[in-house]
Structures are given as structure tokens and as C-alpha cells.
């Protein structure tokens, strides 16, 4: 028996007797629960962090408009690299360093943001700050240093009381996060990156993506994080056709067109287009790229590859190359350098090419920072964040209901609209109301937990009670919305679209009946249920 046969025979012998229980029903039920939770929470999709790849027809109106950001047009112009003194090459250099960009400060470590929260590591891999796995620091989809010792971040599902997609900032020394920018109504907010303007003032770039008839339009904006001033950097129309991504570093924006290969074009936000030799090249689609913090250089690394190459944006020249461990699956730019994620480690790379090996960050992203001044004591925020709720003015028009039912409906709507958690909890305990198919022994804790994951159950309760109900005469109760009892009621689905949006409702309609948030009140006025899922 040769080696292949021995191995095959051994593997078959060690596994053929193994049987996994058929859990199809449980798997599908759990999958459905997750889908419904995600959709009803109006998840807008984990933001494509550095690049948003979408169909593009054209890039329009790239001239700045709106209040200008205070910037020094010369501050971030990439230096004339031909006259920059040569930097001694570290041992790991595989190609002679011919020129270097203006020296960036060395990174001090990485910020890791992911499903479990935010962790700040130093260059030796020691954990300096760990911002919990609950509350406002869990479920992170994007993170970056704010370049002033603080952290910018966005959630997959934004906790209450912030709007879904809001970018938050935990500023240096702060004990609670504050809002940087919320998506304009009807838009998705996609963080692009951070840069430095005049006198080191921090800039944050983002796209606000708004659906149109058969595509969408993304508006690129930069915010001065100190003054709050914004600068409109133009729009990108998305539709069927080629694709484009956006990256930013310093005052430079990189528009990445995705066709058979990737093409880069660079814009200085105050000076206009940059004539870069890199724009004449066609890069493999599997190559990851990231502009440096000052926009002067760009790193290239093939997905799963090992050759990290840094080139000058202005000259296209290769400044240095480094070998990184196998399996690289992410490349991020941050303050002072780049971070390469592999399954076994995170490699921190300075702008000059020095490297440090840190523990892996399998989920989420790792971004270099230079200065960090956030503490372990960062908490939930003010009262509104501690007890999340958006009061609502849902119109509770009179409905043709038996008086006990109508009275309970009015009471529920009033309590929900005023964010009276305790009043609702008391009523639920009194009526024995079903609030969850899981553990909801403490209604307030349950609703607050839901709120932290992006849903506002009280707002939803008020809005659902304003929809048209249906009656189950056999069971003796009324249900809001009617689609729960009568999935064929198109009017009810239309009402739900106004609450949850067409995409969410489209997903919910995949199931036999409406399984989103619903309310049941018995004929005698007993509040039977307020649940979602199945």
C-alpha cells in the first residue's frame, strides 16, 4: 500500500463510523431567526470597509462644494522622493530601497475591531485596552484611529440610540462615544478612511450611498474631526457596468475601477487629478491595495500572497518590498503604516518597512495607530444610550375593535411612544405576555438588549400597533399587522414596507406567513404577545 492509499484508508477508517445527528430543522430555524433579526434590524450590510465595489457609470462633479475643510494644499503633496535621503534598509528588505516618502511616525500598535469588540494592542502584542463584548463596542464592522489618540468605529448593527450606520468616535480621554456622522435619510454610510489636513487636523472620509431607480449614487464627503466642517468631494453614480472602489489617505483619493483588472486613478482633494504612473497599469483583481496615511505611497499585496510592495503614488517607483507570512487575507492602512492580516498573525508594517508580528485577528479588521489615549473605563454613554429608545409619534388612528382590545392597544401605544420601559414591563408581567421565544424573564433587559443590537422594540411596537389588524375568531385574538394572520393581505405588506422598508419586507415574504415583529391582544384585552421570529 503506497502512502496515498495508507492515508486514505486511515482517514476513512477514523471517520466512516462518525455520524452527526440530522439537525436540519434546527439549523433552518436558527438560520431563519438570524435572517429575520438581521432584516428587521434594518441591517444595511457590513460596510465594505476600505473599498466599496459597485457598478459605476461615471464619476461626476469631483469639484469641491459646500463649506471647505481647512486644509493646506501643500501639506500633503507627496514629497519629491528623488531628493529624499535613503533610509537604511531593515534586514527583511528584499529589494534595495531607492527612495522613501516623507517620514511618517512609526506605528505604536494596532486597533482591532470585530464582532467581539475593540482591542488596542501595542507592537509587542500586549493588550492595552479591551472594550467589552457588549454595549456600544461590540459588533464592529469598521474601525480606525482618529489620529488624535481616539478611535472611530462603525457597527454591523448600530446600537440604540444611534441610527443604523452611524460612525461613532471614542475621543482621547473620553469615557463615552459620540456621534461623528449619521447616514442621511435613505442612505447607507460607508467609511472610506482617515487623512490629515492642515496642521495635522484629522479628516474622516465617507460615502453616503443612496439608491436610485436601477442603481445608486454615492456622495463622497470629508469631515474635519476637530471643527466638524464638511467638504463635499463629488458623487459617483452606480449602475450596471464596470465597478469602482474608493480609498483615501492624507488628502489623496484613489478611485479603483474594477474590470478585467483593477485600474487606479488618484485625486488630490484640493489640487485635482494626480498624474500617477500607477494609473497606467492594470493590476490583478486579486491584489489588495491600501494608500498610506499621507496618500504618498500605496501598498500592494496579492490575496493569500507573501510579497508586500510599496510604491510611490507620484512616481510609481517601487520603494521597498517585504515578505509577509503566507495566507494574507486583509491589508489595512492606518496611522504610520499598514497591517496585514494572516490566519496566524497580524503583521504591523511601518511606512519605512519595519515589521512587527502581533497575534492574529481572524475576524474584523486590524489598523495601525501611532497615538492612543482611550481607557478601559469607556462606557455606555449618557442616559439615552443607557436606556435606548427613540420616542415615536406613530399615528394611532382609531380602529374598529372591541373596547377591551382598543383600550389595551391605546395603553401599549402610549407606553411605547413615551419609552416607558417599566410601564410596559409591568403590563407584560401582569398579562403574562410572551415577549420572546427565548429568555425574556426581565422584559426591560430583553428590550434594552434588542436595542443594543440596533432594533428599537418600543418604536416598532408603536408603529406595528398603527397598522391594520386581523382577527382570529377561533383563537379569540387580534393581531397586528394583519399579514401575520393573512399573508395574502397586500395592503398589510404595504404598511409593513413603510415601517421596515421594501428590502426587509421582501425578505420576510420568503416565509409562509409574516414572522417579523407582531402584537397580539385577546378579545378580553389581555396582551398576549409581542414577538419576532418563529
Amino acid at each position, binding site marked *: 500500500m503506497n*502512502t*496515498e492509499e*495508507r*492515508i*486514505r*484508508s*486511515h*482517514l*476513512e*477508517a*477514523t*471517520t*466512516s*463510523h*462518525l*455520524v*452527526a*445527528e*440530522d*439537525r*436540519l430543522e*434546527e*439549523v*433552518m430555524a*436558527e*438560520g*431563519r431567526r*438570524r*435572517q429575520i433579526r*438581521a432584516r428587521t434590524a434594518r441591517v444595511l450590510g457590513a460596510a465594505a470597509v476600505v473599498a466599496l465595489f459597485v457598478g459605476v457609470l461615471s464619476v461626476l462633479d469631483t469639484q469641491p462644494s459646500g463649506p471647505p475643510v481647512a486644509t493646506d494644499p501643500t501639506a500633503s503633496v507627496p514629497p519629491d522622493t528623488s531628493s529624499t535621503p535613503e533610509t537604511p534598509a531593515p534586514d527583511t528588505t528584499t529589494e534595495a530601497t531607492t527612495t522613501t516618502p516623507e517620514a511618517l511616525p512609526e506605528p505604536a500598535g494596532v486597533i482591532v475591531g470585530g464582532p*467581539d469588540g475593540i482591542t488596542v494592542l501595542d507592537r509587542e502584542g500586549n493588550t492595552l485596552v479591551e472594550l467589552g463584548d457588549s454595549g456600544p463596542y461590540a459588533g464592529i464592522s469598521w474601525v480606525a484611529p482618529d489620529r488624535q489618540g481616539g478611535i472611530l468605529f462603525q457597527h454591523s448593527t448600530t446600537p440604540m440610540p444611534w441610527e443604523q450606520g452611524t460612525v461613532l468616535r471614542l475621543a482621547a480621554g473620553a469615557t463615552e462615544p459620540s456621534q461623528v456622522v449619521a447616514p442621511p435619510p435613505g442612505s447607507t454610510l460607508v467609511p472610506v478612511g482617515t487623512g490629515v489636513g492642515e496642521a495635522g487636523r484629522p479628516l474622516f472620509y465617507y460615502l453616503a450611498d443612496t439608491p436610485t431607480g436601477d442603481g445608486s449614487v454615492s456622495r463622497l464627503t470629508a469631515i474635519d474631526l476637530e471643527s466638524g466642517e464638511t467638504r463635499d468631494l463629488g458623487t459617483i453614480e452606480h449602475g450596471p457596468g464596470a465597478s469602482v472602489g474608493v480609498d483615501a489617505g492624507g488628502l489623496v483619493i484613489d478611485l479603483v475601477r474594477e474590470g478585467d483588472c483593477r485600474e487606479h486613478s488618484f485625486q488630490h482633494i484640493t489640487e485635482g487629478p494626480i498624474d500617477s504612473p500607477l494609473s497606467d497599469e492594470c493590476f490583478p483583481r486579486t491584489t489588495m491595495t491600501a494608500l498610506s496615511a499621507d496618500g504618498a505611497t500605496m501598498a500592494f499585496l496579492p*490575496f*493569500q500572497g507573501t510579497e508586500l510592495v510599496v510604491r510611490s503614488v507620484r512616481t510609481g517607483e517601487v520603494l521597498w518590498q517585504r515578505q509577509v507570512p*503566507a*495566507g494574507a*487575507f486583509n491589508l489595512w492602512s492606518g496611522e504610520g503604516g499598514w497591517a496585514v492580516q494572516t*490566519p*496566524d498573525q497580524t503583521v504591523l508594517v511601518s511606512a519605512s518597512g519595519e515589521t512587527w508580528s502581533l497575534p*492574529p485577528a*481572524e*475576524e474584523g479588521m486590524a489598523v495601525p495607530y501611532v497615538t492612543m489615549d482611550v481607557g478601559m473605563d469607556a462606557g455606555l454613554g449618557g442616559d439615552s444610550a443607557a436606556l435606548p429608545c427613540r420616542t415615536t409619534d406613530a399615528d394611532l388612528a382609531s380602529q374598529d375593535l372591541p373596547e377591551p382590545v382598543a383600550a389595551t392597544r391605546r395603553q401599549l401605544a402610549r407606553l411605547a411612544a413615551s419609552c416607558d420601559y417599566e410601564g410596559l414591563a409591568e403590563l407584560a408581567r401582569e398579562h403574562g405576555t410572551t415577549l420572546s421565544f427565548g429568555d425574556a424573564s426581565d422584559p426591560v433587559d430583553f428590550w434594552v438588549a434588542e436595542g443594543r443590537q440596533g432594533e428599537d422594540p418600543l418604536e416598532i411596537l408603536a408603529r406595528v400597533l398603527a397598522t391594520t389588524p386581523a382577527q382570529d375568531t377561533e383563537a379569540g385574538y387580534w393581531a397586528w399587522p394583519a399579514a401575520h394572520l393573512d399573508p395574502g393581505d397586500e395592503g398589510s405588506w404595504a404598511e409593513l414596507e413603510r415601517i421596515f422598508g*421594501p*428590502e426587509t419586507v*421582501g*425578505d420576510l*415574504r*420568503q416565509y409562509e406567513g409574516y414572522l417579523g415583529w407582531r402584537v397580539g391582544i385577546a378579545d378580553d384585552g389581555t396582551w398576549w404577545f409581542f414577538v419576532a421570529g418563529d
Partner: protein
Amino acid sequence: MTALRHATTRLRQRQFPDFYRVHHQPVFRALAATLGDVELAREAADEAMTRAYQRWSTVSTYDNAPGWVYRVGLNWARSRLRKQTREYLDERPPDNPVHQPLPDPDVERALRELPLEERTLVVLRHLMDWSYEEIGAALGIPVGTAKSRLHRVMNELRHKLETKR
């Protein structure tokens, strides 16, 4: 969402049970062989199948959907072990070994000595019988890379096992 897309989505939802019935056991066995821990493999396979169902409209279009499920399960298991033990999987003795006594202890030892990534390649090729294309699609690596890595690993195993004889 258009009516057509609705119909397509519903069709795919109906196809998931078939996919599960065909691929659940093989993926579970491959995970058990890779991880060396039956209970962990069981949970990983369940979690991966749940995620596959959750994203079925997308996953069902993948060239190697079982490969995606296997990879998700493997990543989930590794992540969980790291959180629990802060030790690398390769350095950790399995809690629930797949088989005792082992049919071929030398092969078992040689496989356990491989880094997880390499053991994965061997399992996918010799237990799952996947082509290099399928392995590449499952692990997100080029076909040529899958082929050359597996070639190197097999040479290493051959050397170890034949020296042992």
C-alpha cells in the same frame, strides 16, 4: 425585489434541505478528521450549515458550496478554540479524539504533526476526494497553489512514513 428574484430565492430555499442531506455528514467527517475533535466538529458543522442557510441565496451560487461550509466550520472552530484556550489548535490535544484505537498510528501521528493548513489539504484531497479546483475554491487559494502545497505535503508525509517502516 422582483417577482423573478422572489421565485428564484424560494426555489433555492427549497434546495437547502437537499444540500444539507448530501453534504452535512461529509463536511462533519472532514472537520472531525482535520480538527481531531468530534464534538467540536459537530458544533462547527452545525454552525457552518446555519450560516449557509442564512446566506443560502448567495452560498448556493458558489462553485464549491460544501467547501465554503467546510471553511466556515473550520474558521469557527479555530476561533472558538483560540478564545477558549488562547492556544493554537496545532498545539492542543483533542478533547474528543476521532477514533481509539487508531487504525494506523503512524499516519495519525504524521497528520497531527502537520500544521492545520496542510492537514486541511490532505483531508480535502484524500478523504473528500476533491479536485484541486474544488480545493482551491474551498480554501480561497489558486489551483496551482493548492497543487504545489499538496505535492510538498505529500512528499513530506511519504518521507516520514517510509522512514518509519
